[in-house]
């Protein structure tokens, strides 16, 4: 089967993905390998931003692909593999985050609660030192640092909306919020980032 040439790049990409998904559904592991290659980076980026921990993010991505393979024949629109995978990734990442928080709460032999148990973020030396112009790479780093400083729910809502590209109703379900609340969190996060990074976004 070939992909018609009169399609837009987005449609072509969806058609290519659909071909790979159908191949994988037939048991073609090479097709599944290509799906992994295509989606592992965004999946890892989203998991990492949600978890703030690289090894946890890698485990989540691995689990997500295995789960996706198991459930592949339940995917009704093969061209929508990407968003479907992102839902799995974000769901697993949020579950892991919750269970991690629970473990920290109920751990009997954990050290007394103090700074050692708090959530940490790496300081970004470039984050608070505005300069005249920033490259795309620097801007990305500044955005990443600003995202990491957002309140938890705003951060999760923003990552799921702007990076995982999930619809707001799916985000509402995953975060246990109303759609209205998700809109508010996404908007608040975007406004904070825009205001904070205003001079770099000119």
């Amino acid at each position, binding site marked *: 089967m070939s992909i018609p040439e009169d399609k837009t790049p987005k449609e072509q990409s969806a058609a290519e993905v659909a071909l790979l998904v159908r191949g994988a559904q037939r048991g073609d592991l090479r097709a599944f390998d290509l799906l992994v290659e295509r989606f592992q980076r965004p999946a890892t980026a989203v998991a990492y931003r949600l978890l*703030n921990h690289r090894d946890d993010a890698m485990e989540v991505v691995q689990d997500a692909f295995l789960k996706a393979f198991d459930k*592949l024949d339940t995917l009704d629109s093969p061209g929508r593999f990407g968003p479907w995978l992102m839902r799995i990734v974000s769901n697993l990442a949020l579950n892991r985050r919750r269970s991690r928080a629970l473990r920290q709460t109920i751990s009997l032999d954990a050290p007394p609660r103090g700074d050692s148990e708090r959530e940490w973020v790496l300081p970004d030396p470039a984050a608070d030192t505005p300069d005249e112009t920033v490259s795309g790479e620097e801007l990305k780093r500044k955005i990443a*640092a600003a995202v990491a400083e957002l309140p938890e729910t705003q951060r999760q809502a923003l990552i799921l909306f702007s990076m995982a590209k999930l619809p707001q109703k799916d985000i509402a379900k995953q975060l246990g919020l109303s759609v209205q609340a998700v809109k508010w969190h996404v908007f608040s996060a975007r406004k904070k980032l825009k205001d904070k990074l205003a001079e770099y976004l000119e």
Partner: protein
Amino acid sequence: MTMDNERDNLIPRREAAPEPTPRVDESDLEFLLSEFAAGQLSGGKAHRLRKQLARDPGLSAELRKYSALDAGLDALADEEIEGVDYEQQRSDIVRLVERKVLLSHRRPRLRWQRVAAPLAMAAAVAIALSAWLLYPTGTVAPPSGDPGGPETFVRVQTPAPDAPEGVIRVALAGPGRAEAGTVRVRPVRVEWDELRFGALATGRDASRLPPGTVLVSADRTPTPAIQDPLLHLLIQ
């Protein structure tokens, strides 16, 4: 990447202020701008905002900031995370999938295969049963001296040849189906010159039958409930 949290040499995250009640004012211009930049605004609202943007350079500048922010967030979504070996990650995932497939001794099944498998099995059983039921003598004894292997011992009983009508009841006790025997079906008229059956039945004796046995016996009990989906398919 500079913000990879390895939990040492770090500073604590600032305590977040309590979050306000999450309720957005959808007529707020800033909110509309943010939604517009994110492609979430359509129809009349988008049209009005476009007109306003055309008149207000300050508003356009704010929109450009949101657009630049979105471009940055998009780039962040495609970013490679420092310290992640993507080739290794990919080969690990594919190896685990291969292992999974090998261990399960199956290929992933398509939806049509999930439907077709029971149908094919039902068809096979139907053919086998038809062959036994159409056997002219009504009873097939096991070969003498043969203790009856899983597929060799079959006994068939039908209503007496002179009976005007009757119920054929079938007990299945094949390999993996020793539990068969709870299936009941409607009575069926038996035409001896053209033996038909629309029904299969119980296995009161299933526990005593060796594997591979098919038992057909006469009965007049009208018991139409069918509990076994496979046999239900078979009699349709």
